[in-house]
């Protein structure tokens, strides 16, 4: 697999295939992040597309000696926050817009759907920066230092953001916590 830096160099020269490979490789992570920030599937994809186009425009500012992901995530964060500020009306849409997950029984289907809904609502209620921080930390596996670089904030602030975000999400999921249920039984 060709490294991101090589693909970025080829894309900078106008290579469509190389840019397409970069998009394919990073689209899922970027779309997860933009979805966490926008709380809306359609806005998330719009913001993710804007992020990739913006990244293409700014490829000269990418330092090939550093990882491509955090650089792209910074652009995606800014793109999604910009879009949210432009389209405040559509934020009322629910985050959970997908079809219900397939489960072993209708009861678990309903519960899974309810969990997703609660988690989505809790995530949407978080401040934008906390949403980005917890998504990058818990979903994308970024370190506090990397998130600090992406968001251009101190590492201590990232730790605090992740802590508060996780606590809020846990509170939302408390009724469905299996450990707690076991204790109750």
């Amino acid at each position, binding site marked *: 697999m060709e490294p991101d830096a090589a693909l970025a160099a080829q894309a*900078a020269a*106008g290579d469509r295939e190389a*840019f*397409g490979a970069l998009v394919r490789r990073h689209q*899922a992570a970027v779309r997860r992040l933009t979805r966490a920030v926008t709380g809306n599937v359609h806005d998330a*994809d719009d913001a993710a597309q804007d992020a990739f186009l913006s990244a*293409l425009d700014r490829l000269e500012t990418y330092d090939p000696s550093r990882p491509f992901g955090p650089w792209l995530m910074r652009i995606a964060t800014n793109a999604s926050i910009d879009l949210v500020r432009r389209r405040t009306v559509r934020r009322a849409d629910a985050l959970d817009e997908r079809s219900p997950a397939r489960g072993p029984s209708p009861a678990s289907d309903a519960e899974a759907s309810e969990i997703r809904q609660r988690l989505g609502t809790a995530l949407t209620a978080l401040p934008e920066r906390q949403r980005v921080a917890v998504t990058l930390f818990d979903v994308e596996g970024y370190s506090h230092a990397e998130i600090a670089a992406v968001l251009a904030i101190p590492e201590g602030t990232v730790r605090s953001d992740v802590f508060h975000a996780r606590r809020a*999400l846990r509170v939302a999921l408390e009724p469905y916590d299996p450990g707690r249920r076991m204790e109750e039984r």
Partner: protein
Amino acid sequence: MSDLLRQLLTPDDDGTAFTAAVLLRSAGALHRRRTAPQAVAAGLAWTWLEAWARPWLIAAIVGLALAIALPQLRQGSPAGAAEPSLTADLMGASTGTAFVLAETVGN
């Protein structure tokens, strides 16, 4: 919780349509990037040509302007009014002198 969050945020599709949409929107930017080196090279060539041609161009324009303006200035000045006949006389004299010299040398 991480898994739940990941499930919640992960898109349902495989990203093919998304990638196609991004590539469609970026077609113009990619084309500009492909053609940029040629444009820069062409720009450099024109710059060099302009730099080289500019003195000649200015000299040619000044020469042309002088060629047009000088006869008119001569005709316009009072002293210059007699000049055409004087020039003609001189030309005539010089032609005659040259003819005489040629005849002398030929003999």
